[in-house]
C-alpha cells in the first residue's frame, strides 16, 4: 500500500464562520488537527459541534472559511474522508438490509454506473465482521437495535477505507457493548495511522478516549493535546455555569470510566 500522506496535518481549518438565520453558530474557527490522532470535539449543547463537522463536509453552507484535508481542498479529497452521521439522521424503516447499507459506502468508489458485485459484497461483509455484526448481514435495518444501527453506520464508513474519519456522536444512546466495540475499532484505526474526529458529549470518558481535544462553544475555547486542554478553567469557559456541579471535586470529573 502506498502512503499518500503529504503533510502532518490531517485537517486544517482557517477562518470558518457559519451562521443560521443570522445567528452565528460557529465564529472564526481556526484549527489544525495532526495526523494519526483520535480527536474529540467537546462542548455544551448548541455549541456547534455537529455543525462544525457538517460545514467541513459541505453539508451546511458556511459564510467564510477554508478546509484542507491532508493539505488539499476537501472537494478534491472526498475519497480520503469517511463520515458517520448521527443515527437519527435517517429513517430506519427504509426497506433494506444491514449489508446493503454498508455497501452504500462503496458507491463513491464505484462511480456513476458500476454496480456493486462480489468483491464489494465481500468487502462489506468484512466491515460488518469488524463491528461484530456479521450475523445480522441480511437483517432488515428496522429490526436492529440502536447500538446495532450505529455499528452498521460505522461499518459503512469503514468500507470507504478513508484516511480521515468524521463521526457525529457515535456513542450517543448506544449500549455498553456497542460503545466498547466502537472505541476499540477507532483505536485500531488510529494505530493504523488514520485520523479520527469525533463529536462527543460525555465529559466522563473524554480523557480516556481521546488524545487530542477541541473544546468548542461557537468559538474555539481551546485545542491541542488532551492533557493540556482538559482542565477546569477551559471547561468552565466552554460550559459556563453548567460546569459548576462538576466543579467541587476534580476527582468526579476525571473519574476513570469503565472502558479502558
Amino acid at each position: 500500500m502506498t502512503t499518500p500522506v503529504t503533510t502532518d496535518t490531517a485537517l486544517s481549518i482557517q477562518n470558518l464562520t457559519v451562521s443560521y438565520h443570522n445567528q452565528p453558530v460557529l465564529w472564526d474557527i481556526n484549527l489544525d488537527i495532526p495526523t494519526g490522532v483520535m480527536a474529540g470535539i467537546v462542548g455544551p449543547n448548541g455549541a456547534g459541534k455537529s455543525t462544525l463537522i457538517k460545514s467541513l463536509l459541505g453539508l451546511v453552507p458556511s459564510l467564510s472559511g477554508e478546509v484542507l484535508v491532508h493539505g488539499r481542498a476537501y472537494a478534491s479529497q472526498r475519497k480520503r474522508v469517511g463520515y458517520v452521521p448521527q443515527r437519527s439522521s435517517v429513517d430506519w424503516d427504509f426497506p433494506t438490509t444491514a449489508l446493503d447499507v454498508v455497501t452504500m459506502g462503496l458507491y463513491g468508489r464505484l462511480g456513476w454506473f458500476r454496480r456493486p458485485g462480489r468483491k464489494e459484497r465481500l468487502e462489506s461483509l468484512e466491515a460488518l465482521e469488524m463491528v461484530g455484526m456479521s450475523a445480522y448481514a441480511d437483517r432488515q435495518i428496522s429490526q436492529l437495535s440502536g447500538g446495532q444501527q450505529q455499528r452498521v453506520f460505522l461499518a459503512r464508513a469503514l468500507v470507504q477505507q478513508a484516511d480521515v474519519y468524521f463521526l457525529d456522536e457515535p456513542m450517543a444512546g448506544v449500549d455498553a457493548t456497542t460503545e466498547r466495540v466502537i472505541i476499540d475499532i477507532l483505536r485500531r484505526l488510529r494505530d493504523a495511522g488514520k485520523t479520527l474526529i469525533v463529536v462527543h458529549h460525555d465529559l466522563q470518558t473524554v480523557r480516556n478516549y481521546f488524545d487530542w481535544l477541541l473544546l468548542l462553544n461557537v468559538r474555539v475555547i481551546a485545542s491541542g493535546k488532551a492533557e493540556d486542554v482538559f482542565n477546569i478553567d477551559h471547561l468552565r469557559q466552554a460550559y459556563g455555569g453548567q460546569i459548576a456541579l462538576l466543579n467541587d471535586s476534580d476527582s468526579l470529573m476525571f473519574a476513570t470510566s469503565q472502558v479502558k
Partner: protein
Amino acid sequence: MQWLDLLSDYTFQNVVIGASLLGLISGPLGCFAVLRRQSLLGDAISHAALPGVCLSFIITGSRDISGVIIGSLVTGSLAALTMLLLTRKSRLKTDAALGICLSIFFAIGIVLLTYIQSTNNASQGGLEAFLFGQAAATLRSDLWIMGGITLVTLTLLAVFWKQAKLVTFDTQYARTLGMPTTAIEAVLTCMVALAVVVGLQMVGVILMAAMIVAPAAAARQWSRHLGGMLVIAAGIGIVSGVSGATISTLSRGLATGPLVVLSATTIVLISLALAPGRGLLWGTIKHYRQKEALQKQQLLYALYKHPLASKHYRATFGARWVLGKLKRQGYLVRSTDGGSGWRLTSRGEKAAKQVVATFEEVAT
C-alpha cells in the same frame, strides 16, 4: 363470448393498456416519493398540472395530447421545484409549502378553465374531463406517448439506481460521497411529474395522488428490499389499473379513474391489515399470544409456589380462560382438598419448575 367481445373492444383495450401503463410508472416512482416522505408531492404536482393543461389549450387552441403533456409537465415540475425551494430556503415546513403550492396552482388552473369556457370555443368541450379523467377518450396514439414516457422513466431509474437509492435513504451521506444530490432529488421529483402526466387522461388531476401513494404504501408492507418494493408497487399499480378498467366497462357508465383508485386503495387496506410481519392483524395476534403465554407462566408459577393459597380470590375473565386452557392441556386438575381449588398434575409440575427456574434466572 361476452369476455371475447370485451377483449376485442377497441376502447376497452385502450383503457386497460393505459391503466396498466399508469400503474407501471406511478408504482415505482411513488415508492421514492413515499420513502422520501413526500407522499403528497404527487398531489401538489397533479393539481398543478391543471394550469398547464389550460395554458396549452390557450396557446395551441386544441386538446392535442403532446401539448397537454408538455404544459402539465412544465407547471407540475414548476410547482414541485417551488415547493422544494420553499422548504429549503424559507422557514416553511414541508406540509405548509405543499399546501400553498397545491392551492395556488390549482386555483390558477380553475380560473384559466373557466376563462376558456367563457370564450365559448367549440373545441374546448371536455377540457374539464382532466379534473376526473376520461379514460374512454384514450386513443391508440396517446398510448404510444404514455408508453414512451414510462419506458424512458423506468430506464433512467434502472441506470441511476444506486444514486436514487442512496439519496432517498441518506441524502447527506450521499453528498459526502460526491454525488450531486440536489440534481438527483430534482430529477426524482420531475419523474413524479412524468407519472402524473401519464395519469392525467386516466384518473385526472384530483385523484392522481392516490396512484402515486397507494401502490407504494401497499408494496412497503410486503417487501424487504427497495427493488422488491418497486416491483410489487408496479404490480399493484397494474392490477388496480386493469381491475378498475374492467369493472368500469362491465358496469357501463361508472367512471374508470375513481374505480382504478378504489381498487388500489382496497389493496392498500388489505396489505395494511394482512401483510406478514408488518400487518396490523399480525401485530394484534402476536400481542395476545404473548399475553396468554405470560399469564400461563404466571399461573403455573403461582400454583407451584403457593399451592395452599386461599380460594377466596376473584379470578378475572382472562385468568379463568387461561386456567381452563391449562386444564384442557393437562397441566391442571380441579381438586377439592383446600387451597385454590386447582392442583398441578405431574406434567404441570414439570412445566412449573421450568418456569420458576427461568423466572429466577431473570431475577438474578
